[in-house]
């Protein structure tokens, strides 16, 4: 039940964002500050989501060679930087995770 409510909430905010400017009459201008702020949203939000998965264990900073998620994440970042292909990044990260897991 809670999950369905979550889905409904997600759908409502997502559609509202997609429709936001499209439903306005053509005469309305986008405020410049909003336009500039929107540019930094994806990088900030996405990083806030993946960084804890690499750097934390039980909400505590885990910087060690035993942290295979951090090492695999570093490999994935390098692969993403080099090839810019989602499929390559994900494959490299998963393979590295199993490799470092096997190593430790």
């Amino acid at each position, binding site marked *: 039940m809670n999950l369905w409510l979550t889905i409904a909430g997600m759908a409502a905010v997502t559609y509202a964002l997609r429709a936001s400017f499209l439903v306005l009459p053509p005469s309305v201008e986008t405020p410049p500050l909003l336009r500039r*702020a929107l540019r930094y949203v994806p990088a900030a939000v996405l990083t*806030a989501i993946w960084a804890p998965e690499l750097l934390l264990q039980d909400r505590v900073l885990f910087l060690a060679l035993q942290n295979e998620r951090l090492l695999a994440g570093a490999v994935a970042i390098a692969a993403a930087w080099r090839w810019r292909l989602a499929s390559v990044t994900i494959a490299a*990260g998963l393979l590295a995770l199993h490799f470092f897991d096997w190593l430790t």
Partner: protein
Amino acid sequence: MVLERTALSAGLRAALPVLLGIVPFGMITGVAMVASGIPPLEAMAMSVIVFAGASMMACAQLLSQGTPLLLIVLATLFINLRFMMYSASLRLHLAHLPLRWRLLVAYLQADNVYGLTLARFSEKSLSLEERLGYFLGAGVPIWLAWQAAVLAGVVIGAGVPASWRLEFAGPLAFIAMTVPLLRDRATLAAALAAGLVVVATAALPLRLNVMLAAVAGIGVGLFFDRYKTR
């Protein structure tokens, strides 16, 4: 509103190579959702109703960490804020469409549909009908391919053993989306600030650190942006 057949097929042709990229990402999204505990029916419903891969992946991840509903919806809002940007930009080309068509265009918005469409609109001068035709010609097949890929992922995902650790595909997909964005100093600073804050405030309850990090990242990005233009 009459749909332009040539514009429709031009959109479809432009979308074909993009479909190859969507299918693996859709499948991974499906697999990751099921792997982190969302039942198949709900995962599929989310795919059709929400239709926004990154936020679905984030929802799966946050749900498995026990994040409350309201914060998941808030995280969705932040992740999908870029659609507001697309909406503002598409409006410059499609504002004169009847409202019901604009509502459909809003639903079909996705990163690659937006990218393809804007590239075409800026290189060629098209009539309003042609613009709508091109958007739908690209947007509808991309929507269909995405749903089919998520369905395949959900079906496969239910049978994948946990030892394969496919739930890690979630964060990896986010890395794949983030890294190509880091082209200038302001965006890089925004990402670094968000990463630092999310880890430094990890002890906060209710996963509030994610929201705090988003706000800090946007603030730092804006600060560097201003610094750059001076």
